[in-house]
C-alpha cells in the first residue's frame, strides 16, 4: 500500500509534529494564561499521538521488538495523559494564585523578577 492517499506512520508523525509546533507557538506567544495552559495540553497530546503511532508501527513489525504485544508506546501514552491531568490541576492552581496577586490574566504583566 504505497499510494499517496495511503495513511502510513509518517502521516501520524507529521500531524503530531504540527500539533507540537502549534502548542509551542501558543506557549510562547499568547498573552492569556488560560490559553498558555491549553497550549501546554496541546503539546502533551501531540506527544501522545507520536507515542501511539510508533506503538502501532512496532505492532506491525516482526522480530524481537515487534509483534502484537509491543504496547510500550500506548502504555506510556496513558501515563502521559495522567500526568497531563495532574499538571492541568497544578497549572490552574497557579493561575488562581496568579490572578489573586495581580488581578490580571496577562502573562507579560507579571515581571516582578525583572532586574
Amino acid at each position, binding site marked *: 500500500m504505497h499510494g499517496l492517499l495511503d495513511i502510513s506512520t509518517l502521516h501520524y508523525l507529521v500531524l503530531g509534529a504540527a500539533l507540537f509546533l502549534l502548542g509551542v507557538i501558543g*506557549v*510562547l506567544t499568547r498573552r492569556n494564561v488560560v490559553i498558555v495552559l491549553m497550549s501546554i495540553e496541546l503539546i502533551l497530546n501531540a506527544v501522545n499521538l507520536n507515542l501511539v503511532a510508533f506503538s502501532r508501527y512496532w505492532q506491525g513489525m516482526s522480530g524481537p521488538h515487534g509483534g502484537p504485544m509491543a504496547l510500550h508506546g500506548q502504555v506510556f501514552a496513558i501515563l502521559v495523559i495522567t500526568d497531563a491531568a495532574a499538571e492541568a490541576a497544578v497549572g490552574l492552581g497557579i493561575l488562581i494564585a496568579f490572578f489573586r496577586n495581580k488581578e490580571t490574566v496577562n502573562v507579560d504583566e*507579571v515581571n*516582578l523578577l525583572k*532586574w
Partner: protein
Amino acid sequence: MLFLDHIWIIPLLPAVGAAIMFFFGRRLQKATVNAVCVGAVVLAFLMACGAVVQYTSWADANHHQPYQKILYTWLGSDTGHLTYATHDGSANFQADAGFLLDPLSSIWLLFVTGVGMLIHIYSTGYMAHEGGYYRFFGYLNLFMFSMLTLILANNYALMFVGWEGVGLCSYLLIGFYFQRKSASDAANKAFIVNRIGDAGFLLGMFFIAWYMGSLRYTDVIAAAHSGRFAIGDPFITAATLLLFVGACGKSAQLPLYIWLPDAMEGPTPVSALIHAATMVTAGVYMVARSNALFVLAPTSMKTVAIIGALTAIFAASIGLVQNDIKRVLAYSTVSQLGYMFLALGVGAFAAGVFHVFTHAFFKALLFLGAGSVIHAMSGEQDMRNMGALSEKIPITYRTMFIATLAIAGIPPFAGFFSKDEILWQTWISEGGAYRILWFIGYLTALMTAFYMFRLIYLTFYSKPRMSHEVEHHVHESPKSMTMPLVVLALCSVFAGFLGWPHSLGGSDRFAKFLDPVFARGEAQVLVEEGKGQQLAAGEKEEESTSPIEYALMGLSVAAALAGWFAASRFYRDADKGYVEPLAASAPPVYTTLVNKYYVDEGYDYVFTGRRKLGDVRLGVLGLGEASAWVDTNVIDGAVNAAGWMTRLTARISGWWDKWIIDGIGVNGPAILARMLSYPARLFEFGLVQWYALVMTAGLVGLVFYYVYH
C-alpha cells in the same frame, strides 16, 4: 651504715627548721623557736658525728674511696638526651642531687655543724631581747642547710646551689637590722661582690664541664689523675683561675674582700658563724676539693699563693689601727683566710685545711666573745670606750684570752701548729719567691699577734674609758652565751693536737686522715715543689726534719711573743684619750691604714658615684655608670629593637593580608563577577514566555547540533 645512708637528712633538718619558721614562725613562742631551730642543728651535729664515725670504718673496708649517696638525677637524664660536644668528644651531662662524704667533707661537716650548734645556742641568749627572733633563726637554719649542701655535694652544680644559698643567707643576715641604711647597704655590698665571684665560679664550672665532660668530683678527679692532661694545660689553668675568682669573692681575698668588714653590721652571731667559721671557708673548701685540677696548673697555684699572702699582710696592716672591736676581727679573718690560700697555693693542702679547722674554733670564739663584750657594754663596740673589763666579765675575758693566744700562734694552742705548718711548707717550696712569701707570712704573724693583743689590752686591761652608767651595767652574759665560749676555748686549746707535726714527735693524724683526698695520681709528675718527687710516690709531706724547721718554729714563736710584748707596752695602761703609737710616730701611715688604704673610695671612684676626698672633689671614672648605660641603651636597646622589628613585620604582614590577599585574591573575583553580571542582568525581563523561548531556542540548537554534527 645507718647514718651514711641517710646522710641527706643532715642538710634536711635545718631546712625543715627554716621552713617551719617561714610558715609558722610569727606565731610561735621563743621556746618553740629554740626547740625547732636549735634542736635541728643539734640533731644535725649528732648525725654528722655518727656519719663520720661510720665513714671511717666504711672507708677502711673500701680502699678509702669517698662515700657517695645519690638521691636522684637532678640535671641531665639517664637516657643520654643531654649529650653535648666536649673539647675532645661528647659527653652525657649529668649532675645529681648526690652527697659525697670523704675525709675533706667530714672535717668540714664536723666543724660546721659543731660550731653552728654552739652559735645557735649562743644566739638564744644574745638575741633574746631583739625583735625578729624567729626570722633570725629561720635565716640561720637556712644558712646551715645551704652550707651543708655546699659541703656534702658530689658535683660542682649542687655545690653552686649551696654556694648561692650561703650568699643569699649572708645578705639576709647582714641586713637583719634592715631599718638601718648602713646595714642594708652592707648587705647589698656583700651580695653584689659575692656575685662577681660567682660569675667566675660559673665560668670555671663551664670550662670544667666542657673540657672534662662532667661536673662530678669523682669524674673530674679521675680525669685529672689519668694523665690525659699535661701540666700547665691552658684550659685547666683558665678553669682553676676562674674558680679561684669565685673563691676570692666568697672567702674575701683581694680584690673582693671589701664586703667582709662592712658585714659586721649584722648581729654578732652572724659574724661568728658566717663570716668567721663557715661561709668564708667555702672558697677554701672549693679549692681544696679541686686540688687535683690546681695541681695540674702551676700558674694558678702561684696566683693563689701570692694573692693569699698579699691579702694576709694587707688585711693585717689595716687591722692594726681599727677601733671597732668587730672590725679588727673582720680584718683578722681576711688575713687568716689569706694564710689558708697561701697554704693551698704552695701545695700544702692538708696544712691549709688544718688552719681552717683551728681557725673556725678560735675565730668563732673571738667573735662570740666580742658579742659578749658588746652585750656587757650595752651595745658599745668602739674599743676606745672600753677598758678594765677583765674583772667584771671573767669568763668572757678568759676565753677570749685563750683564743688570742691561739690566733697569735703561741704553742701549744691550736693556731701555732696550723700556722707554723703553713709557714714551713711555704719556706721549703722550690723557688726563691717562696722565701719572700714566707717573709710576708712571717710579718703577718707578727702583726696578728700585735693587733690581737692590742684588742685584749684595750678591752680588758688598761683604764676604764667608758661612761659611768655603762660601767655600772657591765655584767657577765647568761649561761647560754658563756657555755659555747667555754666549749670553743677548750677546742682552741686541744684541737691543735690533732696536727702535732712529726718534727715534734707527733703523728700528724690530721694530715694522715686527709691523705686519700690529696693523693696524687700515678701518671702525674709534679713540676715545681721540691717535695714533688716524694708526693708522687705517695709518701708523707715531710719525712726528715731538718734543723731549719725548728729554727723557723722558734722564729714564729718569737714573732708572736714580740707582738704580744709590743702591744702590752703600748696599750696596757691606755687611759681616756690615749694616742695610737702609730699615729704619733707616722701620721700619714696611720691615716692610710685607718682609712683602709682608701680601697672603698677607689672602687667608688672607678665604678660608681662621685667621691670627695677631704675637700677635693674627684671626678668619676664611672665604669659602673658606663656599664649601666650600656645595659640600658645598648642591650635593652637591642631587645627593644627586636621587639620593634617584630611589630614592623607584623604590620607589613597585616597590610599585605588585608589589601593584597583579601583585596585582590578574595574580593577580586567577586568584584569581577559583579562587574560581569551588570550586562548579564539586562537579559532578565521577568517574563515566563521569554524564558520559555530561550529554552526552546536552546533545544533547537541542540537538536541541530546532534543531527548535523
